[in-house]
Each structure stands twice: as C-alpha cells, then as structure tokens.
C-alpha cells in the first residue's frame, strides 16, 4: 500500500495504471449493477475518466 501511494506521488506508471484500472472496473460495475440508478447515470463518465487516464499514464516512466 505504501509503495502504491509512493508510486502515485512519484508519478510512476505502475501505480497510476493500477488506479486507472480500478476506476475503469468501477465504471463498468456501475454501468451494470442493479442497485442504484444514480450509479448507472454516472458510470459512463467514470469509465471515460479511467480510460483517458489509462492512455495518459501509460506514457509515464516506469
């Protein structure tokens, strides 16, 4: 966990990619979950943010 936070602060690719992956997975879950309509409504923007973040951070240094 400390390594992950250090990676985020130090703009390391691995940690940021992990964060983007979590956001994408959260967005996909929000899109398909049967519990709350608001989560469905905000799912697209969450997935979009995660995907764009993934594209950007994949250019960070290792």
């Amino acid at each position, binding site marked *: 966990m400390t390594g992950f936070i250090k990676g985020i602060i130090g703009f390391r690719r691995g940690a940021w990619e992990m964060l983007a992956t979590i956001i994408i997975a959260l967005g996909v879950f929000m899109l398909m979950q049967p519990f709350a309509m608001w989560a469905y409504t905000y799912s*697209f923007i969450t997935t979009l943010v995660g995907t764009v973040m993934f594209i950007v951070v994949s250019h960070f240094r290792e």
Partner: protein
Amino acid sequence: MSNGTADRVAKATPPRVARKIRGLSDRAIAWIFVAPTIFLLLAINIFPLIWTIKLSFTNYKANRIGREVKDIGLRNYERILTDGDIWLNMQATAHFLFWTIFFQVLIGFALAWLIHRNFKGNAFWTTVIVLPMMLSPAVVGNFWKFLYQPQIGLFNYIVGFFTGRDPSSFEMLGSVDLAPWSIVIVDTWMWTPFVMLICLAGLRSIPDYIYEAAAIDRASSLRQFFTITIPMVLPFLMLAVLFRGIENFKMFDLVVQLTGGGPGSVTELTSINLKREAFEKWRTGYASAYAIILFVTVFGLASIYVKALNKVKER
C-alpha cells in the same frame, strides 16, 4: 533475403521505378509501403469513429435524408444514462456476462486439468471438446433452437429424464425465467473450450521441477494445487476472463438466433438493443451516443486486457 533473390528483385524492377526509388531514403521507402495501410485504417476505422462521435451530439435520423440536423449537445447521452429500460438491458448483459464467465472458467479449468493428465485418447477428446468453438454462431443458434424444442428437443428430454418432469411442460426459450439461462448454457457450451485451451497453456507452462521440489518438502496434492497451480495459472485465467468478458459484452449473433431478445426484452442484450435503435427505430444520433458508451466501456476493458497480457509476457 539472399543475395540471389535480392539481385533478381532488383533486375525485375522496371528502370523508371528503380530510378525514382534510388533517390529516396530508407525512411521514405518505408513510408511508401506503410501509407496504404495507414490510409485504409483511417478510412475504415478512424473516420467512422470520429463521424459517430459527431453524430452522437445531433438528432440525425438516417432514414430522413432531407431533414435538418440539429446539434443537441449531450441530450442523447443524458437520455440513455437516465433510461430505466436501457439500464435493464445493461443488467441483462451483466447477468449473461457474469454467469457465462463463471461457468466457462469453472468447467474450462476442470477440463484443462483433466486433459493435462496424459491418458489414452487424450488427443481425440481434446479435439471433441474443442469442436463447438469451431462452429458458426448462426449454426449453433439454430442447432440449440431444435435442442430446446419442448416437444422434440433433446435438452428438454434429458432434463425430463433426470427430474421426472414432463419435457413439454417447460419452454427454455419462451419462459421469462428460463430464457436468460438458455443463452448462458449455449454460450458456455460453445466457448468453454476456448477457456480450456488458455488454461491448458497455463498448466503446461508450469515446470515439473517446482512440483518435484514441493513433493520433496512433503506438500500434499491439495497444497500443491493451491500454492503452485492456481497462482501460476491465474494470469492465464485472468486473460481468459477478460477476453471472454469483452467478447460477451458485444454478443449479438448467437442470442439473436436463439431468442431474438425475447420473451419481452429479458434477453435483449445491449448490442441487440443498439441495433434496434439504429436500424429499426432509425434514431441514428441516439444510437451513435449509445455506441460510444459501449465503445468506451469495451475500450476500457481492453486497456485492462492489454495490461494483463503484458504481465503474462513478463513472466
């Protein structure tokens, strides 16, 4: 290329072309070769994508050519993301995705585990198991439609034989409760071999000396399974899950052939719904926004897929 072949190619090049090429750098020649592919990629993939994004902000209808096209901003996205019916379609897709992946991983891994143990007729059974994957989804759809027939279907007969129920008393494709499961069964039947092959590759990549070392340390078979087999096959399993997830998110042909989205809309997956909006209701702008939402979701999943793939490569 050998010198002989290079000489023959050089001699066969018409003098006019040879004269022109001689003045070009290697980089320029490389660009000349790559340019047609790049042009085709732009024309077939990139341009339609940009055009779809543009249409998603309009009220364009493809069946009304002369109609004025108005820019309506984010209204199409707003409508889709607040529509309860589309939310239900997403849930139907989620049900399909979750259960197909669950069963395919479970059965696929079990089959790979069995096939991995060399036994007589191993190659024959591998071929038999892999057969469904090689069939066309249209053929599989039609084939299972007959199997699910309440009067003459083999599936109903087998269920009736084991449960004591009258085979014609239930209809897999016509029942609201059973139809979502009927498509799960067919997709599992068709694509479990694919997961099995990936798991088999994972199992075969584990070196024997690791098991031998574990055996010397007196680790039980169960312990070896949970501390060696599962962790080492996990990246392959993850790959199979992501690959099937992306594929099933786009599932269209098999389900259309089997249920057509019915009864009602219980098996109407997002791709079927999208096709209806685009080519039955002709709401092109709205359907474009819908397609962009699905595209971003699949693209996001594909990004995770590529990351998982790189991790497997690193191993």
